[in-house]
């Protein structure tokens, strides 16, 4: 009986993971929605102008505990791949620039933090049908994406608090895979 309960729990957990992950899968291979956003220093970054690079995007908010938990690992990832044609950006969603700068001082990011002040860009990256109860701009918060050198989404991990990948293991693996193929 206990075994059956454990088995059922495992199947349900696996199904939930596949289901959440699968929902973002619909965007894999699709052209990444274009954006042009200012960073916290006022520099403008346009996805169109970044074509030719591999882009890692992390949607975040300062209040998001899971974003903060993975933040040091994102800096580590940036340092690991910065000389391999990989650009890393955090897109902060609908927050005051002063608060974002305070967070930036805390985490000491070496890469730009972009300000999606009205959540328009974040909403464009929300997969259809995922978390319908949420505002569309909230859906991608804590997600990680890889956009390839041709502007297509190659990796999209929506937040899954129950099996969170703070160390960004899957993101690193996918980057390695893409870069190995590219070279």
């Amino acid at each position, binding site marked *: 009986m206990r075994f059956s309960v454990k088995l059922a729990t495992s199947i349900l957990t696996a199904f*939930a993971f596949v289901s959440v992950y699968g929902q973002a899968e619909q965007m894999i291979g699709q052209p990444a929605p274009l954006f042009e956003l200012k960073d916290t220093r006022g520099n403008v970054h346009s996805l169109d102008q970044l074509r030719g690079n591999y882009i890692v995007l992390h949607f975040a908010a300062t*209040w998001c*505990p*899971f974003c903060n938990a993975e933040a040091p690992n994102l800096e580590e990832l940036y340092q690991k791949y910065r000389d391999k044609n990989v650009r890393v950006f955090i897109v902060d969603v*609908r927050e005051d620039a002063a608060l974002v700068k305070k967070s930036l001082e805390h985490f000491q990011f070496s890469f730009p933090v972009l300000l999606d002040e009205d959540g328009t860009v974040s909403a464009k990256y929300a997969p259809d049908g995922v978390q319908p109860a949420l505002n569309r701009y909230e859906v991608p918060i804590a997600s990680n994406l890889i956009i390839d050198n041709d502007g297509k989404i190659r990796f999209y991990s*929506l937040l899954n608090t129950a099996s969170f990948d703070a160390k960004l*293991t899957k993101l690193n693996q996918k980057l390695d895979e893409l870069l190995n193929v590219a070279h």
Partner: protein
Amino acid sequence: MLLLYFIVLLHSLPGPRQMSSDTIVKVVAPGVSAHAGKDAVVNVSVLVKKGYHIQAHKVNDEFIIPTSLDIVENNIIITGKQAFPAGKKFKIEGSENYLLVYDGEFKITIPFKVQEEIPKGKYTLQAKLHYQACDDKTCFAPKTINFDIGVQVI
């Protein structure tokens, strides 16, 4: 006779429980009686929907939004230091970090003193509960629930 008993009982109560909620959190604030110039306490119950958790009052990261309660400034009572329960540890997979959270039901105790010069009668205090919730899939933007606390000055 029974009806009379209930009418008397109803009038002797400090006031109705106030309930406010959104889709994740429900706040229940009982009416409370107190004498002018004397100390009293109100216990506010917070119910977090099954499957969700909210950040505790005491958090271990300066950017996390803790659960907090504000009573809107008024000339009826002076509030003391609120007491929140300790949070439960919530491990973040793949990280050394853990969150301190509340789930299920918990109480916030608010000691207060009614101002000396307040006449007897029923008063309504406005209050706000601030929280930030997550479930097993995602986290939600910080929210505030407005609710009332009924105070009967006797």
